[in-house]
């Protein structure tokens, strides 16, 4: 060991307490490059959108109490409700919530002063509120009505203007995620202290690393798909319009090439948190640390080969087999994690 931790003595602690500026609520409401403030900003903002998404879910359930239209006036409005609910929960709750955890914890776990690019970090956060408003505002202009998967031609030829706004909002959120992920990768790669090699890194950092690699590699595909969608809607193109030579399946392929890995964007940080919390409360080191870390990377890697299992009802039948195989294989690293957690106990 190159260094040991020296407990902060009484006098020194007092000085720190005195010199640390007291944080006010207003500090969280303005531009800040402090990773902890940004972490809290992420978490509070996503919690707010969680409540918004939850309210939409309540409206959906309320509507479903009876077979008649009670809460909404038309079937389209009902479709708006669940489309916006889904988009809010995925892009404004789960993903930014974990970004919040990452921002708050990763520098602390690495013993780094802050993230590698504090300013970029703040920018990534501040893209979220306008994107959220844009998405919620889309409900006022005929809302997205094609679900969170936004399959064309329903989303291109048959939906209201809200669909365009939702796509723009997702664009902003995509940029935010990519900026955040680049920041995490660089922080984890370069800002580990001396003596902390890859294999000494906390498992949560491994999880965030795997997640960030997925984000950086997959999100540009979402951006590509959304750009084509917006062009089809307002630019007069026909990438997805079969009557003019386009192909609706193009969207499905590109969209799922992002959105299946996105499933792992949503679950890997959670698994990382579980690995840490379980180990601490069991008061034992994680069982099979390397395997757990590698399984995160394995999931990230295999996650890129399974996208078409979301298209089992639309894909050419012969192509379904390879995707079935990869989809089953991805159960193996997930199983490793679960058995390792059990082993830890």
């Amino acid at each position: 060991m190159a260094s040991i931790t020296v407990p902060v003595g009484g006098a020194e602690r007092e000085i720190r307490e005195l010199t640390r500026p007291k944080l006010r609520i207003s500090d969280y409401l303005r531009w800040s490059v402090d990773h902890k403030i940004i972490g809290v900003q992420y978490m509070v903002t996503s919690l707010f959108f969680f409540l918004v998404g939850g309210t939409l879910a309540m409206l959906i359930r309320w509507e479903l109490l009876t077979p008649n239209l009670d809460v909404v006036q038309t079937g389209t409005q009902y479709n708006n409700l669940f489309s916006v609910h889904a988009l809010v929960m995925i892009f404004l709750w789960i993903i930014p919530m974990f970004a919040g955890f990452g921002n708050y914890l990763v520098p602390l776990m690495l013993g780094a002063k802050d993230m590698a690019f504090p300013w970029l970090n703040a920018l990534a956060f501040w893209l979220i509120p306008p994107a959220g408003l844009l998405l919620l505002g889309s409900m006022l202009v005929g809302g997205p009505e094609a679900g969170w998967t936004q399959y064309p031609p329903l989303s291109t030829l048959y939906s209201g203007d809200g669909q365009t706004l939702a796509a723009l909002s997702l664009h902003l959120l995509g940029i935010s995620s990519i900026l955040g992920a680049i920041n995490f990768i660089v922080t984890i790669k370069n800002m580990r202290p001396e003596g902390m090699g890859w294999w000494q890194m906390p498992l949560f950092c491994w999880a965030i690393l795997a997640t960030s690699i997925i984000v950086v590699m997959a999100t540009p595909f979402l951006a590509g798909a959304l750009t084509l969608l917006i062009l089809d809607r307002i630019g007069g193109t026909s990438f997805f319009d079969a009557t003019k030579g386009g192909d609706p399946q193009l969207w499905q392929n590109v969209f799922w090439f992002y959105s299946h890995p996105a499933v792992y964007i949503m679950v890997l940080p959670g698994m990382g948190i579980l690995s840490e919390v379980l180990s601490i409360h069991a008061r034992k080191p994680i069982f099979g640390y390397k395997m757990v870390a590698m399984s995160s990377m394995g999931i990230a890697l295999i996650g890129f080969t399974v996208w078409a299992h979301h298209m089992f009802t639309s894909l050419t039948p012969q192509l379904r087999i390879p995707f079935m195989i990869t989809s089953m294989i991805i159960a193996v690293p997930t199983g490793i994690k679960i058995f390792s957690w059990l082993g830890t106990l």
Partner: protein
Amino acid sequence: MASITPQKPHQSNSGISGTTIAIIVVVGVLLIAGGLLIGTFTPSILPVQASAESKQVDNLFHILLVIGGAVFLLVQGLLVYSIWRFRAKPGETADGINMHGNTTLEIVWTAIPAIIVFVLTILSWQVFNSMIAPKEGEMSIVANAARFNWNFQYAMPLSIMGKEYDTTKFSQAVQDDLKDDGKLTLTSPTLYVMKGQPVVMEMTPKDVIHAFWIPAFRVKQDLLPGRVTTVRFTPTESGEYLLECTQLCGANHGAMRAKVIVVANETDFDSMMMPMMKDMVEPPPDPIDRGRKLLASDVYPCYTCHNLSDLASANWIGNVGPALNGVADRAATTRSAATGQTPQEYLFTAIHEPQAYLVPGYGPLMPQLNLPECEVWDIVAYLSTQSESGQPPFTVEVPPQCQGSNDAAGAEATAEATGEATAEATGEATAEVTIEATAEVTTVGEEAIQQIANPAINGTPTVEGTVEVTSEVTPEPTAIQATVAP
């Protein structure tokens, strides 16, 4: 740190003793028994099995459930056991044992899932290949989906009607249909299939992506614009099942369903086809009747978006598109003024090229349905009667190729004459109906209807007059009622 943990090896290396093996065997047997239990009782909540595929899929699912059930019990069992066995005892404040892993164990729990996955892959592959393989003697049915309705097309030979027809008397459209393969295309909003008869569905959507799903058959396949997708199944149980759209397609997606009827044999199947064929080879002579019948049959998706109180009994309560009540008045006034077309041209275009002119306040949502032109003319003829006053504000000239000639007299005779012609509904002989004067027509028509409605009367109504009607038409009494009304 409060206390020092006794140093334990960082890798556990418990030797495998006889007791360990015994425990593993007992636990293994218990897990498999538990898996079988789960695998046996869970399928009872599945829908009925009504096709050969449903049995294959369920068998595979059963295997998955047994394996999954055993794994579930193993994981949950280990979790509960570990929480209990390794809990902190009162007074214990030290860290737990400092064990970092066990390479053998890790390899085992990576390899076993990998082997399970491998086996499942092979099994699934076999089932899937057999499901998509073309079957011998399979029947091809075309499925069309448009928001928010299904229809199914069958190619059937004229012979199912059990009598001879002079095909030259059919309308040009029907003759054209017969020309290539001697079969007529019948369109139905219900999917009829035969028990034991393999089916291949050839499917295309008219607008967005839809999905063909029959839970009782365990088959699901998307319909993609610009492609023809197929799905194969062999029904094994007679009965009525449900077909649902499972790809979000818009406002009334939840109502996009169709009935699937599995009939026991070919005779029953043909008898289901006969009324459809009859409408084609012996159509009501009046295009207004044909159009009404067509719309009321729910073959086309019109009703899912439009409202028409004249047909309110037949699901016509859609609210996505403009209501069709009084459409004839609007066609004759504002719409023809806006489009510069005659009212009938406007209505024809509105159905045939829906994007050509959009009613203010409505988006370009109506798909290009590509209905046969003659059917569109029939619908236009019927819609021309949908006016405030009940009188058509304009007359629709149906093109000659759309008129069959089996109602030779019908072309000239009044609608009432058709009513009388049906007097032979109960007999084989040609009906001879004579009408004295127009003033008496209504009365005569009613008499005729009464005779048809009552099969006991087997007579031929004879009224002095000149018009002679020869027909083999056997319309249903309700249809006649409609034609007789002023």
